[in-house]
C-alpha cells in the first residue's frame, strides 16, 4: 500500500527521474536506488507515531515541493563570512547547496594516511568499495534514510589509515544559498578511522536567511580499535533551512568519540545520532546545546547502545527556547547483554524563555545486562526570578541579565571543545544568537 502521494513525495519521485545521478548505470546501485525509492514512496515521511519522531510533525513539509538540485550551485558566490576559519591550518571541504566545491576546498592538503574523496568522484573512479554502504538496506531506515539511499549524489568519503594521527582539524562546511527554487539535496558520507588513528572534524552548517531548502544528510562513522574522533557540529543555518541529519557511529575496542554540537539556526533542525559501542572500553561523550526563537524547531536524538564490556557513554545537553520555539531532546541508553561493567549517563536541562515556547525531553534507559550503571536526568524550567532580580539589583539591565544567565546555562556544553579558538568561536556564536527579543 502506498502512503498518500503528497506533493513532497511527488517532487522526490520527479527528482529520481533526473538522469544526472553519479553512478547511474552501475547495476547494483541502480537497483538499490530504485528499491529505496519504492520503499520511500510506500512508507512516506516519518510519522509522529514513530517513537523517534513523536514530537516532530512533518505535515507542513509533506505539502511542499523541492527541486532536485540547484543548477547554479557550482558557481554561486559564497560570502567569506560563511567560511569562518576555525583553526589556521584546518583543511576545508565545502559543499554549496549540496554540491562539492573544489574551488573552495583544500582537501588535497590532507596529510599522508588520510584520503578524502567527494562521493561523486568516488562513484566515478572506484564505486566497488562503496557497495557495502550504498547497496544495502537496513531495518532501521526511516523515510529520510530511504530517500537518501535513492537520491544521494554527493558526500564525503574519508578514510584515515591505521596509526595515522591527523593533527589539523578537518573543516566540513555545508552552505545553503538562495536559488531559483527551493531545492533538496541528499548527502551520504562515510568516515572511517583505522586502528589507533586520530582525527578532529568540525562540521559547519551555514546559510542565507530566507533561503528555503532541505538538506538530508546521512553519515556513517566507523572507528576501529583505539581510534579517536573529535567531532564538533556548529549549526547556524539560515532561518528557512530544513536540516535532517542522521549519523550512525560504530566504535571498536577502546575507540573514542567526542561529540559536541551547537544548534542555533534553521527552521527545522533534526539530528539523530546513533552510537554503537560495540568494542570493549569504547567511549562516547556528547555535549550540546540548542537555542531557539521565532518558530524554530530543533530535534536532537542521541541513541546509544552499549554492547562491549566496560563501555562508557556520557551526554550533557542544554536546550533553550524563546518565542514559539519548539525543542525536542531524546536521549536513549540501551545496555545490551554482554555489556558488563558499562556505564551510561544522559543529562539534559532546558530553559523556556517564553510562555509559548515548548521543549519535550525524554531520557530513556533500556537495560538488558547486569552489572551496569545507567543514569539519566531531565528538567524543563525557567530563568530563576530571584537570580534575575539579584543581577538587576546590581545594575545589570534585564535583557543583559537574561543573556548572561542563558549563556551560563549553555556554557558547560562548550567545555572540552578543541582547539580553544574553536571554543571561543562557539561561545561568540552562542552570545550572538541569544534572542534579541529577550529584552
Amino acid at each position, binding site marked *: 500500500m502506498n502512503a498518500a502521494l503528497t506533493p513532497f513525495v511527488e517532487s522526490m519521485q520527479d527528482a529520481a527521474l533526473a538522469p544526472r545521478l553519479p553512478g547511474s548505470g552501475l547495476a547494483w546501485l541502480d537497483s538499490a536506488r530504485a528499491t529505496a525509492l519504492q520503499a520511500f514512496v510506500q512508507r512516506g515521511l516519518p510519522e509522529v507515531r514513530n517513537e523517534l519522531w513523536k514530537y516532530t510533525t512533518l505535515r507542513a513539509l509533506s505539502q511542499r515541493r523541492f527541486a532536485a538540485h540547484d543548477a547554479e550551485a557550482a558557481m554561486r558566490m559564497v560570502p567569506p563570512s560563511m567560511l569562518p576559519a576555525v583553526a589556521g591550518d584546518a583543511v576545508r571541504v565545502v559543499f554549496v547547496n549540496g554540491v562539492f566545491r573544489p574551488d573552495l576546498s583544500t582537501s588535497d592538503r590532507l596529510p599522508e594516511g588520510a584520503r578524502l574523496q567527494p562521493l561523486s568522484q568516488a562513484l566515478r573512479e572506484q564505486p566497488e568499495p562503496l557497495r557495502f554502504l550504498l547497496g544495502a538496506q537496513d531495518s532501521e531506515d526511516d523515510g529520510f534514510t530511504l530517500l537518501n539511499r535513492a537520491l544521494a549524489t554527493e558526500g564525503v568519503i574519508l578514510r584515515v589509515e591505521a596509526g595515522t594521527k591527523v593533527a589539523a582539524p578537518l573543516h566540513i562546511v555545508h552552505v545553503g544559498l538562495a536559488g531559483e527554487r527551493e531545492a533538496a539535496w541528499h548527502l551520504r558520507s562515510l568516515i572511517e578511522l583505522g586502528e589507533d588513528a586520530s582525527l578532529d572534524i568540525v562540521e559547519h552548517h551555514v546559510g542565507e536567511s530566507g533561503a528555503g531548502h532541505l538538506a538530508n544528510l546521512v553519515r556513517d562513522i566507523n572507528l576501529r580499535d583505539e581510534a579517536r574522533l573529535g567531532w564538533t557540529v556548529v549549526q547556524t543555518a539560515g532561518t528557512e533551512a530544513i536540516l535532517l541529519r542522521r549519523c550512525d557511529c560504530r566504535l571498536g575496542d577502546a575507540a573514542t568519540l567526542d561529540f559536541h554540537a551547537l544548534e542555533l539556526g534553521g527552521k527545522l533542525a533534526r539530528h539523530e545520532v546513533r552510537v554503537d559501542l560495540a568494542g570493549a572500553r569504547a567511549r562516547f561523550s556528547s555535549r550540546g546545546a540548542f537555542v531557539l526563537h521565532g518558530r524554530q524547531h530543533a530535534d536532537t536524538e542521541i541513541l546509544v547502545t552499549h554492547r562491549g564490556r566496560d563501555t562508557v557513554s556520557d551526554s550533557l545537553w542544554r536546550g533553550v527556547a524563546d518565542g514559539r520555539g519548539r525543542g525536542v531532546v531524546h536521549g536513549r541508553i540501551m545496555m545490551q547483554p554482554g555489556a558488563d561493567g558499562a556505564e551510561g549517563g544522559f543529562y539534559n536541562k532546558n530553559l523556556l524563555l517564553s510562555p509559548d515556547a515548548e521543549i519535550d525531553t525524554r531520557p530513556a534507559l533500556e537495560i538488558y545486562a547486569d552489572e551496569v550503571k545507567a543514569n539519566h536526568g531531565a528538567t524543563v524550567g525557567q530563568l*530563576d*526570578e*530571584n*537570580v534575575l*532580580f*539579584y*543581577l*538587576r*539589583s*546590581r*545594575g*545589570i*539591565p*534585564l535583557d*543583559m541579565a537574561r543573556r*548572561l*544567565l542563558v*549563556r*551560563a*546555562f549553555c*556554557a*558547560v556544553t562548550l567545555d572540552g571543545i578543541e582547539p580553544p579558538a574553536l571554543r571561543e568561536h562557539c561561545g561568540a556564536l552562542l552570545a550572538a544568537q541569544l534572542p534579541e527579543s529577550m529584552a
Partner: protein
Amino acid sequence: MLKIENLHVRVAGKEILKGLSLEAKAGEVHAIMGPNGAGKSTLGNVLAGRPGYEATQGTVTFDGRNLLEMEPEARAAAGVFLAFQYPVEIPGVNNTYFLRAALNAQRKARGGSELDSMQFLKLVREKVREMGMTPELLNRAVNEGFSGGEKKRNEVFQMALLEPRLAILDETDSGLDIDALKQVAAGVNSLRSPERAFLVITHYQRLLDYIVPDFVHVLADGRIVESGDAQLARELEAHGYAWVRERAPAEARA
C-alpha cells in the same frame, strides 16, 4: 536623601508594610531592628525594586526622584544597593565577570565610561586589600558553594566596589564569625561618608557596637513603632521587643 512616607506594601496578596515612614539623610547610619516577620526584608526589597512587591499607598523619594517608578537596575545606577539577607547562587557566572558587568552597566547608565579589564582588575585588587576579601572567591561562580559567611562577605565586597549612595544591609551580620563581623563592620565604617547613607537591618546589638548608628528604629507589624539613638538598641537587647509593645500604648496616651 531617602524619604519614605506612609508606605504600604503588599506581597503575594498580603499587606506587609502598613504605613511606614522613615527619612535618612546623607551621612547617616540608621539601624532597623524588629521581630521576625515584621517586614524588615520587605522594606529592603521594595527599596531595591523586587518584582512582586507592590506599593499600594505612600511615597518613596530618593534624591528627589520617585524611587518606586524606577526599574531595579535604574535604582542601582542611581546608587541604591541591597546586601541580601539570602544572597543567591549563580552557577556558571564568574564572580569577577559579574562584578565587572555590574560596575560597567552602572557607569554606562550614569553616562560614564566603562572600565577595561586592566583598569577593573586594578580596582578589584585595591578593594580586595581594603576589605580583606579572599581573592579566591572572585574566581568562582557567584556565591556558588560559598559558605554562609562567605556569601555575606561577598555582598559587602560588592558594596565596596559599587560604592552606592544608599546601602541597605539586610542581616549582613547573621552567620558571620567574630573576626568576619569585625572585618565587615570595618568595611562599612570605611565607606561611611557624608555623601552616603546606610540602613542596617540587624537582630543583634553586637554589630552596632562596631557600626555605631545615628538612629535606631524598631519595625514591628509593618511600621516603625519606636525610634531613638544607639541607646535604644541596648535597651532592646536588655528588655526584648515586648518592652516596646508595652511602652507604645503608654506613649500614645501621653
